[in-house]
């Protein structure tokens, strides 16, 4: 080494480099050696695993019935793991009738006790894998060990315990989860908790109701969301109460749940939720309405077709286009709304449903009146022309909507009617204005211009509405 600044020379410049080279070369050799060894070892391991699995599978009926002595495989950790894997995989896909056979084998062989012990006394990954395995057993006696792990200081262990309880999928597993959650002592990602509650309360969703009633804020929203997925007709009354909840997320969940309740109970409530102040509640209500059968739902959907929110409009259009009878009449009423967006959304959905021609046939082939009306916009223009001057339809439709109010239950009218009327008043004026505004935008293809004008218009509306609310 000829040169190098003094401080590097003092460090032993060349010495350092040579050491680094040696270190790197040794490192490379070690890594390569490790890769080769690991591949070789895994190859051998899987060969052995395959051989032993085959041997154990040959004795499977005896192992399951206990005819083969447990000591033959239970005291060999390799065989023990194979048998446990087969048992847990079988439990995962078996039905309720087959489950006891597998559970008896798990209990008699002591495998279940082994996992319970690991879940209680082991640490780290060993404990977490024991918790997950316990969950997969679906055994009721696994629940206490899993619940104990919910009190662990390690967040990952708690998550593993929640996942384990989720796999148990029984109300006994749900209750400790709910109790801890409602008392705000359970801090796990929402997604995991929701899935766990969904699995555990599937057979008995009513279990959620008392906890929902005592929960507040985000906890309440989460439980309501799960209930929304699991609701069944027996929960009708409880869901009606939720529909009047001050939290919009809860109202949206109620709307989702009401789709599974008999229409005579759900329809009046869904009609009100379809007028909610929050767009996602209205959307949920419209989706639920689209799934139920009720002779009056078309009127509510027509109103939703004129919603300020495009998702609500589109979904209402989707539902209306799939109404089995009376599409011509619906089309007539859509035109009567004088809402260009509503008309185009509906015609577009009719086209997607391949029923546009059928609906137009009923109106005397109006499409033929428009030269070159090959697309929805052309058809829309033709339809508008066809209905020009038929203002009586709009009046008839308003009458229908008023009549619709009369089917609402009294308690809901008390809560919703006055604000609902107020809201509807502003909605009507907004729609009138929107019709004018869209007409001022040349052609729907200038989507950006249209969007800009409409957005500005609605921003103005929102501000005006906010001002009105403040004055009140």
């Amino acid at each position: 080494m000829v040169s190098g600044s003094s401080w590097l020379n003092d460090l032993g410049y060349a010495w350092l480099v040579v050491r680094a080279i040696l270190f790197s070369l040794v490192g490379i050799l070690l890594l390569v050696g490790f890769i080769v060894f690991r591949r070789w070892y895994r190859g051998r391991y899987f060969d052995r695993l395959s051989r032993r699995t085959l041997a154990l599978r040959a004795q499977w009926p005896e192992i399951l019935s206990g005819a083969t002595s447990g000591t033959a495989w239970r005291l060999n950790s390799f065989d023990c793991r194979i048998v446990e894997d087969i048992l847990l995989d079988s439990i995962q896909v078996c039905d309720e009738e087959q489950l006891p056979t597998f559970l008896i084998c798990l209990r008699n062989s002591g495998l279940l006790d082994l996992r319970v012990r690991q879940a209680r006394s082991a640490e780290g990954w060993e404990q977490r894998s024991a918790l997950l395995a316990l969950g997969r057993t679906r055994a009721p006696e696994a629940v206490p060990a899993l619940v104990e792990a919910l009190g662990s200081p390690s967040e990952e262990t708690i998550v593993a315990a929640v996942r384990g309880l989720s796999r148990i999928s029984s109300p006994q597993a749900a209750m400790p989860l709910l109790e801890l959650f409602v008392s705000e002592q359970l801090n796990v990602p929402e997604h995991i908790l929701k899935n766990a509650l969904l699995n555990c309360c599937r057979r008995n969703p009513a279990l959620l109701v008392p906890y929902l009633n005592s929960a507040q804020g985000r906890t309440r929203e989460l439980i309501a969301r799960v209930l929304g997925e699991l609701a069944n007709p027996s929960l009708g009354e409880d869901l009606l109460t939720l529909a009047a909840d001050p939290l919009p997320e809860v109202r949206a969940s109620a709307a989702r749940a009401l789709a599974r309740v008999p229409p005579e109970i759900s329809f009046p409530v869904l009609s009100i939720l379809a007028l909610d102040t929050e767009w996602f509640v209205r959307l949920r209500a419209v989706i639920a309405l689209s799934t139920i059968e009720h002779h009056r739902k078309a009127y509510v959907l027509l109103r939703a077709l004129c919603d300020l929110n495009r998702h609500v409009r589109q979904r209402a259009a989707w539902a209306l286009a799939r109404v089995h009878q009376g599409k011509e009449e619906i089309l007539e009423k859509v035109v009567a709304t004088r809402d260009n967006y509503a008309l185009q959304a509906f015609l577009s959905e009719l086209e997607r449903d391949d029923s546009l021609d059928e609906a137009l046939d009923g109106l005397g082939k109006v499409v033929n009146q428009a030269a070159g009306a090959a697309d929805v916009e052309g058809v829309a223009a033709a339809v508008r022309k066809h209905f020009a001057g038929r203002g009586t339809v709009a009046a008839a439709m308003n009458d229908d909507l008023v009549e619709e109010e009369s089917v609402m239950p009294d308690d809901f009218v008390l809560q919703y009617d006055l604000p609902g009327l107020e809201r509807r008043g502003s909605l009507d004026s907004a729609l009138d204005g929107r019709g004018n505004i869209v007409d001022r935008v040349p052609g729907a293809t200038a989507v950006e211009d249209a969007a800009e004008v409409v957005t500005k218009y609605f921003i103005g509306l929102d501000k005006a509405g906010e001002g009105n609310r403040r004055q009140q």
Partner: protein
Amino acid sequence: MILQFLQVSNDSLFVYYLLSNLINLALLIVAIYKNSLHRHRLAGVRMDSAASPFSPPISLLVPAHNEELGIVANVNSLLQLDYPELEVIVVNDGSRDKTLETLVKSFHMHRAPIVYISEIGTASVTAIYRSSAHPRLLVLDKESAGCKADAINAGINAATSPYVCVVDADSILEKDSLSRIMAGVMCDPERVVAVGGIVRILNGSKVEGAELKEVHLPRKHIELLQVIEYLRAFLVGREAWAGFNLLPIISGAFGIFRRDLVLKIKGFRADAVGEDFDLIVRLHRYLLDHDTEYHINFIPDPTCWTEAPSDYGSLARQRARWHKGLLDTLWATRDMLFRKRYGRVGWVILPYMWLFECLSPLLEVVGYTTMILAAVCGCLSHEFFLEFLLFGYAFATLISVGSVLLEEMNYRRYSRWREVALLLVYCLFEHLPYRQLTMLWRLRGMWEYLRGDVRWHELKRTGVSAQVEG
């Protein structure tokens, strides 16, 4: 005077190399630890059903420019992904071929009067198409603004989901990749704002109808070297940086973002050369400016397979463009450097990107030159010169072998003995002569950027489209 300069230069280079290698070694160690954790965690994540009704909806954005040949197969494969709430938005970015016509015909699409609100300014969207066969499919036809970012922005405007996932039209996602990448969000949905997945090289693999049937290593040397390079970049670099919440980039080929935040930062910057890197740095800036707690995550097993350049010309252009993008973003965000407000981003990752990514080709060229000069002038012994080169080479090879180890331990996409042996052999060539070649290409990118040439040179792609159609 010259000798003194050479000495100082050599010493600085020595320190630079030492530092660079130590950082890489630290990243490798962190990555080994994080990858092993991920393997264990996956067992639990798989227990959260992919079909859960609580999975948040995703809008998959596919910018397509002249993709007539492969677009149908690719859209079909995206529609078949295992994810319960999925919307696929293809943005036909002013294609001059029959991309739009092919889509309209194949998926029974028709114009739909959907309100398109241009929250992020883009080139004009001329029509929106919906499919009567696939309700989840939407096609936006827009005029080309000459950049992918503009097409993605249009897709973001039209998206209706809280999360948007950007995918290249010529890439293939594994069936469960969305469920896996969303595990990175769902572990902490309040904090996680973006997640990147791994991008792997498709060349050489067997593809049928945009579905990956068999994974094989490519045959060409240049493609094989890129496989090693990608493994090192993703499994070591991104995994380790994400561990410190310092992920500087999520690949434009596959990443998921919170839509509301992307809207707040006005989407992808249309005039950015490297729009993916630029977006992530701006996300860091926005969130730090607003004192928001956040995490930008990386999940190493949701895989996107993409075609890599298979000739030197295309690879040179790609690398030059990447380097222009790097320089462009770093220059645009230079005010974040060493600012207290930007914490670790301003003090660690951005200086690292400047010193060890952006300026590295320049420093390496200067370093090699001064070392040769010093050796010629006799102020550096030839032995030391060789030792120094050997040190740099051996250490960098160690990191590459480490990335193959990570692949072998955790993901094993290349399962045959021959393939692993081939990967290990090619680790020896990644740092001589491949690295020197990429250094020259990156220098070219730097030079072009400084001259103001930020044009997008189209890459020659040969394999995937043909395979997809076949």
